[in-house]
């Protein structure tokens, strides 16, 4: 029964989802609302689960003094700082008239968000610019026909998507300017490629979903 019950739940939920999509009338329309609510509740619990799991992992690292344990300590300190700041601001806000939110400008949470979280996460993302540049220098080389096509596409998109492209090709007729080439590449070859990828993903999703609903694919029950 340990395997059968989850398989039955998966089958019933899967079929109900399919039916509510194609038959948007009572009683199937009710399924949609019920499942959406359940999904939101499960999603909210997943956030808690993720947070608690992170804390547990970090506490284990600290207690075992494993490699890089000070980073685990830092994670816990940062986590608790923002949670406590948000909670204090939230409770204070509920008593204010009119009510204020912990997200409002001027709160401790907002200060941490704007001055710690935003710069740090933006920095991590900004580092990508350097790696992309270095990777472009090494990867975009005309070694064969496919690589040369990729190279020219990258050239036209990179120069055509910024104003400098039009600045340099301003002397050409409008339809020959670099932005026009970049727009054409995005609207036609890129769209065609993206459509192929989307159709492939959709077919893969349908077949995998059917396998899961019918209980043929059971890897999600393991572990």
């Amino acid at each position, binding site marked *: 029964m340990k395997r059968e019950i989850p398989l039955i739940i998966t089958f019933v939920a899967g079929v109900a989802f399919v039916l509510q999509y194609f038959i948007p009338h009572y009683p199937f329309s009710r399924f949609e*609302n019920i499942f959406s609510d359940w999904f939101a509740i499960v999603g909210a619990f997943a956030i808690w689960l993720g947070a608690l799991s992170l804390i547990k992992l970090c506490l284990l690292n600290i207690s075992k003094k494993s490699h890089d344990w000070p980073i685990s300590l830092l994670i816990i300190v940062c986590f608790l700082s923002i949670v406590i700041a948000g909670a204090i601001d939230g409770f204070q806000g509920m008593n204010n008239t009119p009510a204020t939110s912990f997200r409002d400008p001027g709160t401790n949470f907002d200060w941490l968000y704007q001055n710690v979280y935003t710069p740090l996460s933006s920095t991590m993302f900004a580092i990508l610019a350097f790696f992309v540049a270095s990777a472009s*220098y090494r990867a975009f080389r005309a070694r064969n026909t496919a690589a040369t096509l990729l190279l020219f596409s990258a050239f036209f998109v990179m120069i055509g998507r910024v104003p400098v492209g039009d600045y340099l090709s*301003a002397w050409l007729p409008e339809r020959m300017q670099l932005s026009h080439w970049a727009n054409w590449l995005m609207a036609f070859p890129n769209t065609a490629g993206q459509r192929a990828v989307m159709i492939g993903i959709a077919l893969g999703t349908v077949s995998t979903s059917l396998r899961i609903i019918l209980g043929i694919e059971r890897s999600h029950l393991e572990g």
Partner: protein
Amino acid sequence: MMKKYHYWIILVALIIVLILLPKPLIVSPTVSTTITVLLGLALVVVLVLTLRGHMIGRRTVFLFIGVSLTLPFFMNFRMPIKISPEVQTLYDAIAKLPPGSKVLAAFDYDPPSAPELQPQAEAFMAYAFKHDLKVIIMGLWPQGPQQANMAVAKVLRQPEIRAKNLRYGVDYVNLGFQSGNEFVIQRMGTSFSGMFPRDIYNTDYAAIPLLNGVENFSNIDFVFNLSSGYPGTVEWVQIAVDRYGVKVGAGNTAVQAPSVYPYLSSHKLTGLAGGMSGAAEFEKATKEIGKANTYILSQSFSHMVVIAFIIIGNAALMVSYRKPKQKGA
């Protein structure tokens, strides 16, 4: 060739110079042109060195990218920005909305994507408030409503908007974050209050004047989605547009934008502002010139430097092809 500590010296020197210089520091167009020419000459030197067989390291690439991204912030350059067809479509759709129209602004991004999306958010909010559009804010990403608050706080400081005395709950409302990804959109198709029973101030849905009569997507005139991944524009198109027929326009990061082009050409998506260039174009279209018009100069410079390094990389490839032939001869 440069040693490792040379880069540290250059970096420290740059930081000291930036700290000591008076602010705000904007150099004249002549100095800006001179800096650009010097940068170009340095790249020519790197190309010549490469052709002579001296390969450059990745730190040199990093240095050039750092310089090309930083210096334009201090330059007095303006480049003509041409509005692309997808941004024009987005603007036209928003411009057609009569005053009092209810617009749902979905903030589905976090701070790493803010340089590209926050200028779009600010331009949209400023335009909406100036044209008396009623804005309902929500987020499928936990950080989204916070980003929206930042944009609203900034545009409310503009004298023209401040003079309108906009009231929270009447002219705009922030419903906050709701977990559940695309299921939130699906549920909103039948009931907004089912997914958002309260706003971020814990006020009941029914007690918010702006939301009177807003039951589902049928009562929304336009959805503007700012997205940097999942859940985002793809989900809004697949559910809100496909199932409920609402009009959705989007602002995306440059990384995500190519993946939504199929929806654009099939007219499922009503306009798209992609990346920093899309943000700069959207600012120009709405006449709300902000940070994107400054940042785009940095992006232009860095793109030129990357293109230069691609040429240098191919020069290095040519040199590597030539070497064995010389040995054979």
